[in-house]
């Protein structure tokens, strides 16, 4: 085990996979000499050269489409997005092309493609650099979607993503890059998709949280504990596939659930999770599931306003008590 930052864990896995598999390469904006704005590709160009760590023009649709062609013909590209907000510039290539080609070709094509980058709040980047994009990629069938909340998960899930033969949307969080923890040194350490992590055990209420919200849910759980409410905190880790079983097992015990994400609450992934819980686990529920997510407005620039839009520890705390009727 080595203590690593989330960003370094990502960098190291890319390097290890590039060493062991010559078909893996990286493309993106400012990833070479700079090593990416957040350092996730730092020094990779020094080790692997400009051919395999390719700086692209600012042409997101162009390099995603180029990545698709490479993936169709035997390569395993990793497409680096400086900000995942920029996926909208490349949406046709991502959702009409990458997501659909295998199916439309009757299964006679594989697209081992990783699209990775960061999203979310924390730097006062305003509406086009602070949002959360996962719902788009869980709505259109074809992508798998991973959202690591810790350094170790980032490493294990990214290795799975790179070795997967499907397009994977790998969603990191800018406010988590500096967080660190022990990460296994095993160059084959991989976390399978579709296995949620139970971050905290509890018997009274289930808090289902993604990415940055996992930490906030854990904080809320500590506060709840002081009031005699023991919250179980579940991090799905991947949204597609989604580990409903682990959530249902928890809810069978607690009878109550709060789903919290940083993305907009309206039509968000939380609505899907809450519905799946209701469809499969209604008999376990003692209270309606509560969803928490960003308010239905563009992410504002002011940090004061940003904090007012995205769920905070207090919001989670309050929702947990509400489903406990306390």
């Amino acid at each position, binding site marked *: 085990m080595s203590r690593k930052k989330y960003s370094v864990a990502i960098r190291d896995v890319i390097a290890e996979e590039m060493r062991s598999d010559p078909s893996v*390469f990286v493309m993106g904006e400012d990833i070479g000499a700079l090593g990416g704005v957040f350092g996730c590709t730092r020094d990779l160009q020094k080790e692997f050269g400009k*051919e*395999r760590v*390719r700086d*692209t*023009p600012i*042409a997101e*649709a*162009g*390099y*995603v*489409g*180029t*990545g*698709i*062609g*490479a*993936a*169709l*013909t*035997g*390569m395993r*590209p990793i497409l680096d997005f400086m900000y995942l907000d920029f996926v909208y510039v490349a949406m*046709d*290539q991502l959702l*009409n*092309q990458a997501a659909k*080609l*295998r*199916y*439309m*070709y*009757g*299964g*006679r*094509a*594989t697209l*081992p493609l990783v699209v990775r980058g960061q999203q979310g709040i924390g730097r006062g980047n305003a509406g086009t650099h602070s949002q959360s994009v996962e719902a788009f990629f869980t709505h259109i*069938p*074809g992508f*798998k979607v991973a959202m690591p909340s810790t350094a170790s998960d980032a490493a294990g899930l990214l290795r799975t993503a790179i*070795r*997967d*033969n*499907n397009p994977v949307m790998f969603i990191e969080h800018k406010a988590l890059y500096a967080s660190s923890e022990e990460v296994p040194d095993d160059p084959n350490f991989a976390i399978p998709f579709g296995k949620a992590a139970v971050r905290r055990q509890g018997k009274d209420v289930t808090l289902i949280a993604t990415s940055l919200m996992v930490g906030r849910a854990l904080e809320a759980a500590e506060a709840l504990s002081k009031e005699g409410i023991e919250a179980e905190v579940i991090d799905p880790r991947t949204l597609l596939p989604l580990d409903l079983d682990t959530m249902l097992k928890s809810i069978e015990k607690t009878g109550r659930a709060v789903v919290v994400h940083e993305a907009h609450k309206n039509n968000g992934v939380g609505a899907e999770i809450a519905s799946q819980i209701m469809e499969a686990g209604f008999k376990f529920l003692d209270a309606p599931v509560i969803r928490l997510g960003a308010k239905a407005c563009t992410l504002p620039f002011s940090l004061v306003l940003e904090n007012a839009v995205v769920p905070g520890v207090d919001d989670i705390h309050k929702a947990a008590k509400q489903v406990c009727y306390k």
Partner: protein
Amino acid sequence: MDKQTILQVYETMLTIRKFEEKALHLFEENKLRGSVHLSIGQEAVAAVVGAYLRDEDYITSTHRGHGHAIAKGARPDKAMAELMGRETGYCGGRGGSMHIADVEKGNLGANAIVGGGIPHANGAALSAQLRGTDQVAVSFFGDGAANEGIFHETLNIASIWKLPVIFICENNQYGMTTAVDSVTSVKDIAVRAAGYDMPGEVVDGNDVFAMEKAVKKAIKRAQEGEGPTLIEAKTYRWKGHWTGDPEVYRTRDEVEEWKAKCPIKRLEKHMQDKKILSLEQIKATHKKIDKLIDEAEEFALSSPDPDPATVLDNVYYEGDK
């Protein structure tokens, strides 16, 4: 062009023509549905490119892509079955006319989003470059796609990385119902190559020998590591944009003028003049292709529909790397 290649190009053009005439007939008989975009009149472009690509080379194609697929070696029977949405079609009935692909044979697919497939050729060329092979990739697209942003992004990337890719714009004069000159900043799309520091050439797309010259040069350039080429093949689609197009945007005279420039008739005349094929041999070739297409129709009509129980298959690749 040697005699053998001339005959190959000729048979490919005839196959495309008769395949599409059959598709139109079946559509009118209500045996085909969905979108069917015909390239009748444009066959020379696909046929010549197909003749000079090897099996291991790549193409990307368009919504008007039957010709490209056939020229890259697609079997008419499996292609017709796909047009009918049958299980035996190239995509098992999941893609239809606008998505015929045969990735293992280098056809990375027709693409129903205008310009959508252009960068995929770039990627295949990058893949060849990274793997150190001498494969080349050809991207077919129409005049309409040359006004999409993705066209410009792709050409820029191909140029800076000197990718072994050939961009072939089939300028058939109309983007759906809109005349190309009414929506395009330049008279010749080929001049846009200059903006991306690559050769750009206007070619008579109905002349197989003009196409031959341009395509050979572009392949050589790609294989020698000099990078991409843009070829603009001026041609014309005889039929409407889609089956049922009222064609209010052009005159009958204009269509007739272009029919007089039929690439197949031109080659037939050349072959007779040069004594490559006699009239009898030409007639025999027509009969041979008619039979091939009739068999394709029969195969498609007698093929089963896909099983609804399999509708969720192949959303994802299942299994390990």
